[in-house]
């Protein structure tokens, strides 16, 4: 079959034999930023704003709840099953649907709802990035299909940057089939290099940091 044929061609070309151990790999290079953790929230939110995202720094969960309530007023919303959203009382805001575990229901809801509300497993301060793992608590489509996305993240999950993420999570594949790094609203510049937001993913993203 092609597998044997291709592997054989590869080995012949590079002068290796089957089962031969690899040569020594270059060391992993992770430079975890020596940042000020206290400043991380501000850094994260500033970066998100620079990407045309909206932000809010909630001192406590109740503030987050109030902010989200105002943000979704008059609109339909689906919240993920993230425990943190329940803790903040966001999951039970009037008008917010939550608790979906069925794939078809999820698709149906995501394709019609105005806003998807999620938490995030981590956030990366230096790039304004949300890190979302697909789990029973967080479905993938909620941060993808609806035209707007609100992410509510507790302070403690904000990392300095990409290097710290890979330092603490060397292999996300062990935990999930999908890890997505979300940095700003969906965009394209495919027509005359003119920036357009919200092509396929959400055109509006809001990051709420709590604590």
């Amino acid at each position, binding site marked *: 079959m092609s597998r044997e044929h291709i592997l054989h061609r590869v080995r012949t070309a590079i002068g290796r034999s089957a089962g031969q151990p690899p040569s020594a790999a270059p060391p992993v290079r992770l430079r975890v930023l020596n940042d000020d953790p206290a400043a991380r929230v501000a850094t994260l939110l500033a970066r998100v704003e620079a990407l045309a995202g909206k932000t809010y720094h909630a001192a406590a969960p109740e503030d987050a709840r109030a902010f989200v309530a105002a943000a979704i007023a008059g609109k339909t919303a689906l919240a993920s099953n993230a425990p943190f959203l329940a803790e903040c009382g966001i999951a039970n805001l009037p008008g917010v649907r939550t608790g979906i575990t069925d794939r078809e229901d999820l698709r149906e809801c995501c394709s019609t709802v105005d806003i998807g509300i999620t938490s995030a497993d981590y956030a990366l301060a230096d790039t304004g990035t949300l890190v979302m793992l697909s789990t029973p608590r967080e479905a993938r489509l909620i941060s993808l299909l609806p035209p707007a996305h609100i992410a509510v993240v507790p302070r403690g999950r904000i990392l300095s940057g990409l290097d710290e993420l890979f330092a603490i999570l060397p292999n996300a594949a062990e935990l999930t089939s*999908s890890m997505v790094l979300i940095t700003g609203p969906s965009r394209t510049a495919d027509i005359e290099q003119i920036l357009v937001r919200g092509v396929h993913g959400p055109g509006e993203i809001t990051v709420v940091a709590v604590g």
Partner: protein
Amino acid sequence: MSAVFDKKIHQTLADANLQLAIYSATGRLKDKRTESVAADALPDYQELRTHANALKKHAIENLDHYLEEFERNVEAHGGKVVYCKDGAEVSDFVLDLAKQRGVSLIVKSKSMTTEEVDLNERLEHHGLESVETDLGEYILQLAHERPYHIVAPALHKTRYDVAAIFEKELHVSYETVPEKLSQIARGVLRQKFLDAGIGISGANFLVADSGAVVLVENEGNARLTTTAPRIHIAIAGIEKVIPRAQDLAVFLKLLARSATGQALSVYTSFLSGPRRAGEIDGPGEFYVVLLDNGRTKLLPSRAKRQSLYCIRCAACLNTCPVYRKIGGHSFPWVYSGPIGAIITPQFMGVSHEPGLPFASSLCGACAEVCPVKIDIPQVLLDLRSEVKKAETREKTNRLEKLSYRMFAWVMTHPRIYAWAGWMVRHAPIVKVGPVRAWTSQRDLPPMPRQSFRDIWSRR
């Protein structure tokens, strides 16, 4: 060079609007990259390049090991790896699976590898609908054109071009506002994502220790392509494999900056298999197609195998003064720009387009911006030598060979050289050959009466 190549170059140079479109689009991308890797923005930039080069070198030199490790890990997470030696095997696999699962609609995210093997054409030939979902690729699919640029496929199209294409193919009214055009595409494609039975993606990286496929994008179409349909097939060249997930800390910092000047692209997906127990959405089946299609032909040459390090950022295109004039469609294959110039002869043979390695002033701007430090000018020089060796073997271009033999003889006989120089300076100028070519574009320099050595000898 071939007449075809010559003609395409001429046509592109003669089109003033196209010249402006190419130059300004690449200029914007070039400037954004420069800003994003400057010392104040990314102080580690040069160090990261060195690491990235070392990682790619190591992966390629141990490619079989990493392919097998990748395969084991994909399978451990419930996915399947399929090795395909060419485009026919890829489409056979997809067609077979589609048939078995009763799939008639496929959505695709942007993948140069699938362009390389004309996947859409093959699928459509067999009655499947395969829809490009990246806006630029979608526009080109409607226009039946090849990508113009590795990262910005519709770089050569104006909003008026797109308006005309949408009006004709989608039967919508003529609309030139880019935002509105994007919304039209979004509307059409949304339903396709939800209805498609298979989502096909490429892969920016294949991570050996995780069995993961990494997808880098800005629109969200790759996420939708790989989340909504029940089946995900990722198609990637075998050279895309990197050893460890942690190596992404190096590559991801370089890729988006080199391509568009972004610190990170909007969405970076790390996908390792069908959805796990408890996960609410995601595909139920996950396949990774590992494609050869000639990559094993580039491996044997120690000097040239660095051509496989490419992470398809297109920084070389954006900075290349030649690409910025002749554009993507002048190139004979789907890969254009400096990277296209070095891999095309290696995949297709040097005689496929013998002028290609010579369509460069060897300015080296490409090597300077390549995030994985491919020494493109050196590979071009090696390919030039191979073209000439082939011509010697095939006994073509004999006059040129003879003239360089004469050049070597003259340059090793100083008195003959001095005489030849005198002739150049004093003989009447005849506008044939190189002289004619030179004077078609610029004036000749004035011919000095005396050479330097004449003046020196009279001191």
